[in-house]
């Protein structure tokens, strides 16, 4: 009888240990004297404090040890503050519950939930933790401190708001032209030739705003769906390239791009429209960033062997090129390699190309030299089939 009970208790203990060992969140429970009587494995992983360093310690000491690992700017307020918050929360939840019957259930659910507070650790690594406290009423457990790693969420939040403020800033530039020039038109007597120039500027800057907004939406859509809306089909990369180039209109009546080395077949599994969009962006950049002219050529290239075999659509221009520093920043949202401010663009085109190619299982490779030109390659895996093994591509 007793041995059965012991066995069941042991089993239960092992179960709990396994659950806590697997939990990504850390826990410390405290006895009636507010000394730690249990430390979960995740707590050590998150804080670098081993159970042996923590077990038996009073909450004051644990507080001090955690604080010594936080950034000085955002010190943790401590257990006492968390308990005060909890008490205040309970009081308001209780008061509301009496007057507001409909919201009562929700409030009650919120009542037991711990208030969370974020702290930033600098040791053992840079980490943002969310702390919560629950109070218990048993002799064995007076309170439980829980820790959740929110480093990733915090970083994503930061990047989102940074992106938003950059986007807003990028829209302000064309808005400044549109707002200012239209005000000049209304309030000043401008010469006829000035009026024409004003209208042309307003039109050009509005077009820029439209492309920024469209490309922002494109990027958001691509990122949200992560390729789930891609309609994959088998097609020949060379044929697709020829089609896109046929429809492509070079700016300022420049010579159309030359397709070189289209011999052989290069079957790939891609979304036709998305790949055409990416290729179109690269072609249009090749012209924009070679304002002095020069040929723009397209090559079908290959690399690797066996299952690693890749085909690439390569676009070369003889334009302004990029310095190594500029090249390193390529693909950053809103980054423009044109310091003169004369080449139009949103700084989003390459980001879109990169997203599309990576979602198609390929990669974007760019080689460039300042003053000499740029070579952009959209690498894609060859569609796996018997035919693919027999493909012989002529190198450019």
């Amino acid at each position, binding site marked *: 009888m007793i041995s059965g009970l012991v066995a069941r208790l042991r089993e239960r203990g092992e179960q709990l240990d396994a659950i806590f060992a697997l939990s990504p969140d850390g826990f410390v429970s405290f006895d009636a004297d507010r000394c730690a009587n249990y430390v979960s494995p995740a707590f050590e992983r998150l804080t670098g404090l081993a159970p042996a360093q923590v077990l038996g310690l009073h909450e004051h000491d644990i507080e001090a040890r955690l604080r010594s690992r936080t950034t000085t700017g955002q010190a943790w307020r401590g257990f006492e503050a968390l308990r005060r918050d909890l008490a205040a929360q309970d009081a308001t939840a209780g008061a509301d519950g009496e007057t507001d019957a409909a919201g009562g259930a929700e409030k009650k659910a919120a009542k037991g939930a711990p208030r969370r507070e974020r702290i930033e650790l600098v040791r053992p690594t840079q980490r943002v933790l969310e702390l919560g406290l629950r109070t218990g009423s048993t002799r064995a457990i007076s309170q439980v401190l829980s820790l959740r790693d929110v480093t990733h969420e915090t970083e994503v939040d930061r990047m989102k708001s940074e992106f938003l403020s950059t986007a807003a*800033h990028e829209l*302000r*530039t064309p*808005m*400044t*032209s*549109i*707002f*200012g*020039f239209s*005000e*000049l038109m209304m*309030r*000043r007597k*401008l010469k006829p030739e*000035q009026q024409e*120039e004003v209208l042309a*500027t307003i039109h*050009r*800057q509005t077009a820029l705003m439209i492309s920024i907004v469209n490309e922002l939406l494109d990027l958001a859509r691509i990122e949200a769906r992560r390729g789930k809306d891609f309609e994959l089909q088998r097609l020949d990369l060379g044929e697709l390239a020829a089609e896109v180039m046929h429809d492509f209109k070079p700016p300022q009546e420049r010579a159309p791009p030359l397709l070189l080395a289209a011999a052989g077949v290069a079957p790939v599994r891609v979304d036709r429209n998305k790949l055409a969009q990416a290729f179109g962006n690269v072609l249009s950049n090749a012209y924009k960033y070679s304002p002095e002219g020069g040929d723009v050529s397209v090559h079908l290239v290959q690399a690797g062997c066996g299952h690693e075999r890749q085909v690439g659509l390569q676009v070369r221009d003889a334009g302004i090129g990029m310095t190594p520093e500029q090249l390193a920043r390529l693909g950053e949202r809103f980054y423009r390699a044109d*310091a*003169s*401010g*004369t080449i139009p663009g949103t700084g989003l085109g390459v980001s879109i190309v990169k997203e599309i190619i990576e979602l198609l299982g390929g990669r974007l490779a760019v080689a460039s030299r300042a003053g000499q030109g740029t070579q952009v390659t959209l690498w894609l895996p060859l569609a796996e089939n018997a035919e693919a093994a027999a493909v012989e591509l002529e190198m450019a």
Partner: protein
Amino acid sequence: MKRILIVEDQSDLRRLVRWSLDEGDYEFHEANNGAAGLAAAQRLRPALVLLDVMMPGEMDGLEVCRRLKADPNLGQPAVILLSARAQRSDREAGTAAGADAYLTKPFSPIELTELAKRLLQSAPKAPALRERDD
């Protein structure tokens, strides 16, 4: 004739500023980055400098402003900062750099004209070009 220097990387915006102020009797000069703007100011000693805050290159508008105000040979030109950054901390950074005014983009050309007039009334006349040229 008072000399005005416009330092801004976007050519459309340089023209916007020039046309906004075109009613007065001014002589305009332009630069498209911070370093070129500072060099032009040292050569031209303008009465007023319109300065974009964020420009490509090593020197942003705030740095140019600090140097303009610190150089005793420049005769303290009036500086209007133009910036797409609209937060209070950005404004304060402008004031700390010694700017006389801070306009956020988009700005009103009429307002800019009024502001420029006001600042130029209290500014000293432009000295002759290349006084020590020999």
